């Protein structure tokens, strides 16, 4: 018991050396409460780590299963292709029909396997950390090139409109953005009849807060989407009723992937459609964060740090309420209630549609690091309380 004050002093010195030092001058009661809070944070962080590890295991499982599926599928689909070159369809129309069914379903199977793997990748924690500068124009041109055989088969005319003076760089995952662009253009081709036009546009729009938006849009002259189904069109496995009745094949996952890519990049998906006349899909990508927005975010950090240091409360419940109040007021909802909120956040991470602001997530992480640095925590993760 006698060595506790000395130990506490030691810890205070240690916390000073970590950078903040302000907590060393707090009242002991307040320090104790912060220590207890830090313990909770440690427990929550351990649980988050466990959950992240589970997500990784699940992704590994899906990846392995996908690999195991792909090899036999290659044989089945490949030999169907080979057989179709060896059969005399003219003399046997029944066989022709059978091969058409095999061919259609082979295409669906390939698409399904690829979509399932793509969807599993969204569950990877911190996916947005791998973001890099992505040129939307290059991605669009590549997508058109990849789809050229479908375009040629239907004699579709594709027009790509963009301002040659402008650049179309966004921050993101090039593989996923590419997949979303391919899915949107492939859909436009799939739902258009022969010799129709598809217009792809890349334009920059200025926004009021001096941030710009890069709009990628695909306009087709296809069958359109029934108005009451537009809101459901990106649901997993959902297929528009006219797509089903017109026997247009599909997996119902293409637009789900698009919607997830859009959410991961803090972009917005807009759908305008007129039944029988065509559909326009537009994705509004935010361009890089403007200096003004960065300044506001940094100011929020400062204010929250000040708020934590100046908190006057009697118990942990009150402290949590205060943190919630301050955190909420500044938009750092995830940070406000450490324990349960962190856990729920980790679940939210696996559901990309709910991530509204990657900057807020980064802010949360940085604040957690700052909290850890500021608090005198032992190597074991336990706070040293007087």
């Amino acid at each position: 018991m006698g060595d506790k004050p000395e130990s506490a002093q030691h810890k205070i010195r240690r916390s000073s050396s970590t950078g903040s030092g302000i907590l060393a001058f707090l009242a002991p009661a307040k320090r104790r409460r912060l220590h207890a809070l830090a313990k909770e944070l440690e427990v929550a962080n351990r649980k988050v780590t466990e959950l992240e590890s589970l997500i990784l295991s699940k992704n590994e499982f899906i990846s392995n299963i996908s690999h195991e599926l792909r090899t036999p599928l290659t044989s089945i689909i490949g030999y169907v292709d080979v057989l179709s070159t060896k059969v005399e369809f003219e003399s046997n129309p029944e066989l022709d029909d059978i091969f058409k069914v095999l061919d259609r379903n082979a295409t669906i199977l390939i698409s399904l396997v690829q979509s399932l793997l793509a969807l599993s990748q969204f569950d990877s924690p911190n996916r947005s950390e791998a973001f890099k500068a992505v040129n939307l124009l290059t991605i669009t041109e590549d997508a058109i090139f990849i789809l050229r055989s479908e375009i040629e088969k239907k004699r579709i005319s594709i027009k790509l409109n963009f301002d040659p003076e402008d650049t179309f760089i966004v921050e993101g995952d090039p593989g996923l953005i590419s997949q979303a662009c391919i899915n949107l253009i492939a859909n436009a081709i799939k739902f258009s009849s022969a010799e129709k036009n598809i217009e792809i546009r890349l334009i920059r729009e200025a926004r009021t807060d001096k941030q710009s938006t890069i709009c990628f849009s695909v306009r087709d002259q296809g069958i359109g989407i029934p108005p009451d189904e537009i809101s459901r069109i990106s649901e997993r496995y959902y297929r528009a009723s006219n797509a089903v009745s017109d026997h247009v094949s599909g997996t119902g996952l293409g637009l789900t992937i698009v919607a997830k890519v859009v959410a991961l990049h803090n972009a917005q998906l807009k759908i305008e459609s007129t039944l029988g006349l065509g559909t326009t899909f537009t994705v509004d990508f935010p361009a890089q964060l403007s200096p003004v927005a960065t300044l506001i975010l940094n100011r929020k950090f400062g204010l929250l740090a000040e708020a934590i240091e100046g908190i006057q409360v009697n118990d942990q419940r009150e402290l949590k309420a205060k943190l919630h109040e301050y955190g909420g007021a500044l938009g750092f909802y995830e940070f406000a209630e450490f324990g349960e909120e962190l856990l729920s956040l980790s679940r939210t991470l696996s559901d990309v549609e709910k991530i509204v602001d990657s900057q807020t997530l980064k802010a949360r992480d940085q604040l957690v690091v700052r909290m850890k640095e500021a608090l005198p925590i032992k190597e074991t993760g336990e706070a040293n309380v007087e």
Partner: protein
Amino acid sequence: MKDESQTPAAVPKRILVVDDNADIRNLISLILTSESYEVLVVESGAEIVEKIALFNPDLLLLDIMMPHISGFEVLESVRSLPNAQLSSIPIVMITAKSMDADVERAIALGANSYIVKPFRAVVLKQKINSELTKGAHDGR
């Protein structure tokens, strides 16, 4: 500019295929021989060492996931061969893992292109033809 000598029918190009799965090996062989390519299939990376100089392929089609010696290791070995003509042949990787990391690693190690399983016959033909045409334009 179209060079007639590059069409498979005119001068049969040699393609060396490495895949540990017999069904896939035979499938690729069937698809490519129907395009008049000369095809040699082997089932492991170890066989490449003895066959590559003898067969002198124009293109190597290489599976990534194989037991003992992976496609990545074979890729590195071929690219470091002392014979400049062999070490610079177009290499197309076959992968069942379309993860960005695998593709990036293959390209970084010197692969020219890749094809993801499962693939359609027409895609395989296009890919091979495109790489051989590029190789021809690069002076091969």
